[in-house]
Structures are given as C-alpha cells and as structure tokens.
C-alpha cells in the first residue's frame, strides 16, 4: 500500500472512530454528514457570532498562565510579519512574557530605538519645479518609480525588523489616518507621511492627530489646503473636517448606541475653524519635514483663516485646529450636552479613546471587537492621556489576549502573508538598493526624450507591486479614506488565487530569474535547532509550529510528513532538501497558513 493511501484510510478510520464510535457504517456516514452540515452553517458566516467563544476574560486582567511556546509564538505573530525560528529563539531567551512584550514595545523610546534613516537623499529633498511637457512627463515617471521604491523600502523594513511591533503599528496607522500615494503623488511627501506614522506608532495619539492634520500628505489627500477663507469669502472644503471626526477620532455613533457624535453643522463649523492650512511648501525646503504652515497674515493673505465665531459640539469661540482637536478629545461633554442623547457617566475623552482602542483591538486581537475589553482599553488610554504604549502593554499581557480561542483566529493581511512567506521560509532577495538618484535605463535609445527608469529592486517590486497589489493591499495606497476593511475581506475569491500563486511560485523558485527572489529548502529546514539529527516527524512538527497557529490533524500532518519523507529509503532518516522542497509549498498552501 502506498503510504499516502495508508494515511488517508488511517485518517478516515480515526475520524470514524471519533465520530461514530461503535456505530455501524451507515450511522458513521450520517454522523459525518451532519458534522459537515454543522460546519457549513458556520463556514460562510460573514459576521461571526460576536465575541470569540470560550471562557474569555473580558477585561485587561493580566495573563497568569504558563508562558510556553504557544503563547510566545502567538504574541510574536500578532506583532510582527511572520516569525522566523531565529527570532522565536531570541525571544524565548528573554524568559518572561513581560520581558518579551517590553522588547516588542521598546521602539516607543526614539532616543534608544531611533527611526530608520532615509536611505536616499531624494526621499527628503524636494526637487525643483520643471516646465515643459516632456520634462513633466519624465518627472511623473520618475515619481512613480520613486513611490515604488518607498513601498519596497518599507516592506524591507517590515521584513528586516527585529523583535518590535513598530512596523505592524505603522501599517495600522496608515490604515487609520489614511492618505493615498496616488493622490499625494510627491514621493517626498509620501515618505514624510510614512515617517510620521512610524514616529508616532507608539506615541501620543492626540499629538499624532495634530501633526497628521497638518501633514502635507493629509492636506493634499483630504483637501485641507483647499479649505480657505479669502477676502471675507468662504470656500470651505469640508472633506477633512468630516473624516477627522468620522474616521480618525470619534466615529459616527457613540459606542453601543445609535446616537450620533456630531451633526452636519458641526462638520461645517469645524471646516471653518480648519481654514488656512497650506502645504509646508513643495517648492521650498519644508520648515520641518512633518509640519504644514498656517498662513499667519505675514504672507499677504491675512484672511485665509476664518476668525469668526464657530459653534462646535456645543461650544462657541474663534476656534482653530488646536481648539477643534481639544474639544474632540473632550467628548462626551455633558454641559453643554452635545449632541443630545449620549448616555451619562462616561469620562471625558471616552468617545475618541473607545474609537482608537477598537482599532487597536481589531488589529491585534480579533477583527470583531470585544466591547468589554475595548471599554477597558479606552479607560486606560484616558488615564494615560492617550499614550498608546501603556494600552498595548496591557493588551499584550492580558489573559484575554492569550485565550486559546483567540490564537489563530485572525486572517492574515496580504502584507502579513507575504512577510510570513519571506521570513519563515527564508526567501532571500538582494539588499534594498536606494539608487540615489534613480537611474535612467542605460539600454534606452538616447534619442528618446521620454526617459525610462530602471527598477533597482525588482525582487521587492515583485512583492510590493506584483503580490501585495494583486492581493488587495498596495502599501500606502488603501482603496479609500476608510482604509482596507480587513477581517473576512482579506480572504476572498478575488484574491485567493493570487495568494496561493505567490506561495507556490516563490517556494518553487518559479519566478523568472530577473526577480531574484529565491528559496533554499535546506536553509529553511536548518532554521530548526538540530535539524540534521531530527527525525522527519520532529522536523516537520517544528516547521509546522513555526508557521501555523494550529495543531494539524492526522490527514494534513500525514500528507506533509509523506512529502518530507519523499526520498525515504532507509529507516535512519537523513536530512533531505528534496523533501523540504515538497514540504514547504504544501505547508504554505494549507488554509491554516492564511490564519495567525
């Protein structure tokens, strides 16, 4: 009997035993059918039944259970882009949960863990303006290539990051304070926005909101620079005012109610208060890489900011951005009650704190928020004046976070999926090449006036453009201001084929040579300590543990093992790259690998 056939029938009889016991064959079949039917009632559920099931702790009380490999791998998977065995072992050496979480959050202190530096001067230097159709066309082509390199650089940062939550939070913030690189266009402004998101990844949310409000990227993306008041005439553009409240700070409805947090009048009045901000100036070096300029009357435009009285969320005054943000971060206020109908008893700042905490919960725990835990996070956020780090500290050390039903329940976003492939399977590519400045294609006909630029990082572009884009997550360019919807939306019939194809192609070295993304089966297996002296079963189990948050059943693990033993000829197992070459793509094609 062929080994696979044997495994299948063994699996089937185990299954029948488990389900049917000593029942006759017909009964076993009936049991199987009803089990399938039960699973099918669940499988399409688009809105899961609310909270993760199980005996969940519904607050932030600390985790006091054993600190084993399962818990350690869980916290690493949830805070990074896949976990290679080397990082798991490094984290294991730290000893305790607190030590690991502290290490993950150490990037909060920029004095000891500074931001990565810009690899090329074109990222921070605003180019001079060009005139003429051809020059502008070439500038457009150059900018597109440069934006592609920013995506490449960032993905490389995600993959190269050591034990740190920073890039995962940065990605989350670019999906919270959303801008779109294809609207912003200027690579320098896109880069400044990315660095701002990285700087505040674990920072103070209030400060973050202020700096984001006046960042060039946001002013461009939501038309803040076109919201002005000139010569007593208002051309208020409400785009930013609305999304600031709806998406960035408050949400439409007060938590758990159908009571709106603001009215259309509040939007119109805050838009007036936000008039006057202009770009930090594309044509000149910016005052600071992150900061816009408020026209203050000294530039011959004394009236670009509306100085009239605005009534906003029940308060009146000659408000500007700082006042608007201060009032937002006071909500709910009960005197004056604004707007009416919000239940009493909530602390000042609760509305925003809840909104932000919910986002954090959905990103790091489960996409369906547990309202009790989010409530606890919100209150902690208020106590810490909207500092993100203490809330993340509490969440990542909470009993809720380590509950068995939470582990493996999240769907991987394309970036996390690609990061897992690269890091866990050890895909390699040439080091990021910043090409300062990007080079024209030397093979191009020199008489051509329209310049073609050479992509200096084709393997990274394969991932960021070819894979992430096709799977629905082009970095720095979400579909709209609400960002990627996440949850079940990450895995759909429209993108699933691309996910499987990317796993299959990369782990079979099936991309063309020019893309130089390569997989070495032997190095993959050698990540595991004592790989060459392990049994096939032990090696396979170790590799499954690295990449899957599930313990596989007999059918799946049996098939994987038979792959690993493909050249099995001798009762003494020999470490076998050919087996790993089959094992790796089979593992990555498992639905379990879509979850983490």
């Amino acid at each position, binding site marked *: 009997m062929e080994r696979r056939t044997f495994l299948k029938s063994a699996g089937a009889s185990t299954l029948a035993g488990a389900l049917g016991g000593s029942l006759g064959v017909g009964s076993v079949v009936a049991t199987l059918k009803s089990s399938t039917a039960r699973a099918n009632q669940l499988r399409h559920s688009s809105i899961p039944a609310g909270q993760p099931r199980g005996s969940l702790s519904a607050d932030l009380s600390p985790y006091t259970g054993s600190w084993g490999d399962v818990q350690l791998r869980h916290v690493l998977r949830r805070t990074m882009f896949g976990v290679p065995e080397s990082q798991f072992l490094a984290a294991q050496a730290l000893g305790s949960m607190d030590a690991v979480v502290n290490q993950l959050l150490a990037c909060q202190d920029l004095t000891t863990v500074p931001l990565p530096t810009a690899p090329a001067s074109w990222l921070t230097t605003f180019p001079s303006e060009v005139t003429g159709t051809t020059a502008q066309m070439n500038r457009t082509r150059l900018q597109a290539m440069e934006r592609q390199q920013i995506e490449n650089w960032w993905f490389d940062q995600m993959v190269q990051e050591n034990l740190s939550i920073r890039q995962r939070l940065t990605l989350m913030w670019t999906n919270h304070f959303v801008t779109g690189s294809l609207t912003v266009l200027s690579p320098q402004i896109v880069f400044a926005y990315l660095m701002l998101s990285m700087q505040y990844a674990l920072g103070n949310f209030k400060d973050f909101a202020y700096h984001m409000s006046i960042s060039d990227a946001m002013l461009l993306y939501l038309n803040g620079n076109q919201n002005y008041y000139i010569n007593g005439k208002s051309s208020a553009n409400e785009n930013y005012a609305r999304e600031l409240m709806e998406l960035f700070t408050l949400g439409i409805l007060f938590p758990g109610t159908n009571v709106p947090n603001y009215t259309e009048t509040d939007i119109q009045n805050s838009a007036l208060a936000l008039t006057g901000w202009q770009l930090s100036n594309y044509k000149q070096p910016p005052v600071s890489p992150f900061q816009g300029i408020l026209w203050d009357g000294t530039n011959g435009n004394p009236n670009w900011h509306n100085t009239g009285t605005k009534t906003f969320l029940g308060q009146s005054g000659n408000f500007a951005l700082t006042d608007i943000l201060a009032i937002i971060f006071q909500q709910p206020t009960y005197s004056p009650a604004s707007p009416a109908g919000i239940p009493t008893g909530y602390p000042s700042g609760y509305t925003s704190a809840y909104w932000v905490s919910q986002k954090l919960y959905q990103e790091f725990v489960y996409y369906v928020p547990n309202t009790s835990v989010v409530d606890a996070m919100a209150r902690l956020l208020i106590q810490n004046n909207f500092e993100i780090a203490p809330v993340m500290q509490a969440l990542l050390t909470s009993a809720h976070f380590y509950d068995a039903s939470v582990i493996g329940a999240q769907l991987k976003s394309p970036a996390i999926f690609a990061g897992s492939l690269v890091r866990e399977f050890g895909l390699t590519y040439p080091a990021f090449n910043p090409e300062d400045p990007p080079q024209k294609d030397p093979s191009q006909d020199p008489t051509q006036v329209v310049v073609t630029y050479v992509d200096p990082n084709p393997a990274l572009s394969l991932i960021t453009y070819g*894979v992430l884009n096709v799977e629905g997550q082009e970095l720095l360019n979400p579909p709209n201001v609400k960002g990627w919807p996440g949850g079940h939306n990450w895995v759909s019939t429209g*993108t*699933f084929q691309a996910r499987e194809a990317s796993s299959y192609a990369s782990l079979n070295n*099936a991309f063309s040579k020019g893309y130089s993304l390569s997989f070495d089966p032997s190095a993959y297996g050698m990540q595991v300590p004592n790989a060459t002296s392990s049994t096939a079963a032990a090696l396979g189990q170790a590799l499954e543990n690295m990449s899957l948050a599930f313990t596989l059943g007999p059918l799946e693990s049996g098939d994987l093992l038979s792959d690993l033993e493909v050249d099995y000829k001798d009762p003494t197992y020999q470490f076998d790259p050919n087996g790993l070459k089959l094992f790796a793509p089979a593992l990555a094609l498992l639905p379990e690998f879509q979850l983490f």
Partner: protein
Amino acid sequence: MKRREFLKNGIKIGVAANALPVMLGGLPVRALGRSPLRSVLSNSTNNNVLVIIQLQGGNDGLNCVVPFTDPNYASLRPTLGLSGTALTSPLPDHSSLALHAGMEGILSLYGNGGGNGNVAILQNVGYPNPILSHFRGTDIWNTATDSNIYASTGWVGRMLFGQNPGYPPASIPTGSWPLAIEFGSFLSNLFLANSGGMGITLSKLPTQANPTGLNYDPIPANPTTQYTELQYVRTIQEETQIYTQTLLDIAVKKNNVTYPTSTLAMQLAQIAQLIASGFSQTGSPTKLYLVTQGSYDTHSNEITTQANLLTDLSAAVAAFQADLEAFGAINGINVADSVAMLTYSEFGRRPKENGSGTDHGTAAPHFIIGTQVKGMVYGSDPKLDAASLAGAEVTGNLTFDPLHDFRNVYATVMNEWLLVGQNQSQINADILSVLTQDSNTMYSTNSNWQSLGIFKTAQTQYVGSNPNATGLMLLPNYPNPASGRTVIPYTLDVAGPVELGIFTSAGVEVERPVDSWQSAGNQQISFDASTLANGTYFYRLTTSSGTVTRPMVVEH
C-alpha cells in the same frame, strides 16, 4: 497527476513586470473529493440579468443630468456650472435638461426618450433622514435600510438567499456558476446574506485553475473561533477552485465591439462575455453583476475629475450595450433584451459649490439602462430655489422625491425585472422580505414599496402589506402627468366598501373621490387635478380585501 508530482516538477514561470502572479500557468487542479450534492442554483424563471454599476464617492448629480435652464443652477455653480459645449444637446423630450458633455454615448441610448428610449433617468433618488458619510451612506444603499437601522446583509444577498435558501450547499457542485459576480478585491456587503457571501469577487476572468492542497481534517464539532475562521478560508478556497474551473471550462464568446480601455469598460466587456457564454449553455446562470467606478468624491478639481469619470462611464456603457445587441439571440434568447444596468452612488453632492468642487450632499439622479426599459425622465427637475434648499432636511441640500426612494428603485427592479415569472403574490412577499422585514431583521418601518413602471414588462403593481389581494387591481391613471381631469381605472375582486384617496407625497390626504359601497368588477373614476399644486401624489385604493397605492404626477 498526484499532488506530489505536481509539486515536485515545479514549473518555471516567466513573469512580466506588469502582470505578475496572475501569469502563473498550468497549475493542476485536485478535486476536493466530496460527493456532489443536488444543485440548488439556477432556479430563476426568467433570463433577466442585472448589472449594477456603483459610482463610488458620491456622483454630483447636478453636473451629470444638468438642469441648465434653471437660473439658480448657474448662481449656485459660478465656476462649476456647465453650459454650452460642456453639455450635450438638451434631451429631446425634456428641454430643461442636458447631460454632461462626456455622456454622448448615454444620450445616444436615451434616443428620443418619451418612453421609447433605452435610458430611464430617475430624478432625485434618495431617502428620508439622509446621511452624508461615504461609508454609512454606502452601507445604507447596499443594505437597503432606513437610515437609522443597521443591517449586515445586502438587498441583493437577501434576495438571492430567498431564491436559493440552501446556499451555500455542503459541497459546491462542479460546474456551478456563481449566483453573483463582483469585479474587485473585496466582496461588497451588497452580496451578503445571513449565511455569508452569495456571490464571488473576481479581479478578472481566470486564465488558470487554482491549485488545491491536501485532504483536510474535519473542523471540530462546536468549533472555537479559529476553527470557524479556518472553515471560512476553506470555503473561499473551494469557491475559488470550483468557480474558477467553471469559468475556465466555458466556451467564452468573443466580444463583438472594441471597448474603451478604462477598467470599467474592460470589466463590462468580460461581463458581456460571461452573459453571452451563459446563454449559450443553460440560460444565464449568473444573474447579478457588480462593477464599481470612482472615486466621484470631487471636493476639488471636479471639472476634470468628473468629466473623466462620466466620459469613461458613458463610453463603457455604450460599448457594452452595443456588444449585447450585436450578440443577437443565443439559444433563442435575445441577449440585449435580457440585460439591464442600474447605477447607484452613496449620495449626490451639495448644490452650492465650494470653489473647485462640491461637498457631500443628498439626492441625485440615477439611470436604468436597457432595451426593455421605457426610457425617459422620471420625476421633476431638482428644486434649486433658495427656499427649497433652506427648507431641506439637511439645509442647503436637495430634497428627494418620495416616489424615488431608492428602495422603490430596488422594488421596481425586483418586481419588473428580476423576479418576473413568479406569481405576483410571491413577488410581493419576496420584496417585502428583502426591503421591509424578514425572519431575522427589520430593514424599514415602511411596508409600502412602489413599483415605478420603468420596464416594458409593466408589472407596475403595488407592493404592499396585503399580497393576497389577488384580483384587486389599481391601474395607472391617464393622462399622467395630469393637469386637468385624469381617469383612474381599477378592478374590485369583491363587492364592498371602497375608499379611493389622493395623498400628497408627505402622506396628507387632499381629496377622496370615492367613499362608497361598490360592486365587484371593473370600475373607474374621473378625478379633477386642476386644483392641485404641481408635484407627485399617491392615490390609494382601500377595500375589504386589501389596499393598493399608485403614484400620480400633477404638472400644470
């Protein structure tokens, strides 16, 4: 071929920079090995297909169907107002309106209007208590609820689930067509039912089969959260594999016309192929398609942005329509006569411009396009006078036409197009379960939906709370619009007390021409509308066996 061999052989695959993983070819498919179950698909009794075109971001209706003769329009839009060559010629049957100049293709389909064109323009489509948020607004349109009711399912998903209550089957039969197809990455909640997604998303028509993995261990009984998610992934994998294979196996009909190069046009071209290919097999297995175009969120630079979008929209729609018509009849089914298009957008935009664009607004015109549409303008031009704007529910914005509540548009599409062929009481019950209430959820406090008589099938019956009133009929008044006397015909199924009242759009009864005992059979009354102000009214027939309502327009 065994999986091991296909994995071992590996396949060297050339990758072009502009078409990366989707170029992978030759991956063999491995069946999941489940026994095929009965098909629960394709139970429709007609061949009608609906292509829904979502204009994402909030299309500016006033610069799309332009009331260019209204002086208020020009004063509200000093820089954005369209005139002269920025417009098409006026609509042949409606001289106060012209289309954006980029919409020559749609104007051509409009023809001479007057009920004979292929484009129905529904004016002032909206809903009470309008929401000006993109995302909540989109949800309201997709989930078809009152604006203060929250639902997680879409109206299309609910309708399809009603037609296919067993969906998804325990195992999706090989060769199945999806019930609905969306072009995009993420499945819209338009297609969600309580059982999950009723449709699939495609980024484009597949060119290769999808690999499937191992035999799977069963999901544990009473699964914890991660196992319900694992089952979700397995289902997506199965759907991807089965439907990909279906679409690969069909003999794709080639397009008859050259489409423009926009993404929308490319997607409509593929939909035309799918529809025609479907007719060549077993009717039209997939009845619903969704494509999206945008962003129409023109807070700034509206003139250029909207022109590009509307030009693309119009050209794509015109090419699609021409392609459908060129297919002629397949298996005795006229292709073009079996397809209608419907546009929607989360809101219209503010009448008063902000300088270079417009902020979020409320009501807007929408289109239903197809050879089976009675093409003309439905409803009155938008009211742009200062008093109307000041008195609107959201100050400064347009007021929607109650007859053109977007749920009435959906009711129309269901009653006159998608559900045609069932008996009327079943259709009425279906529509109520989609738009008002089903066993799970209430979607609206309203249970009186109006079929607007847009399609030539002319099933313009009332959709109301008494679907059993067979034999009771209230017919369209004529002439309509009415200025002086208009005749209202009706048929009574039983003798008894009868009331026929005339109501304003706000529900106030202004006249009661009939209030007496009448015998069964055909009846009619002549009603004098000369004393009524211009506007939309309803006339309601109340009898012992039921209540029926219809709209009537008064225009002096």
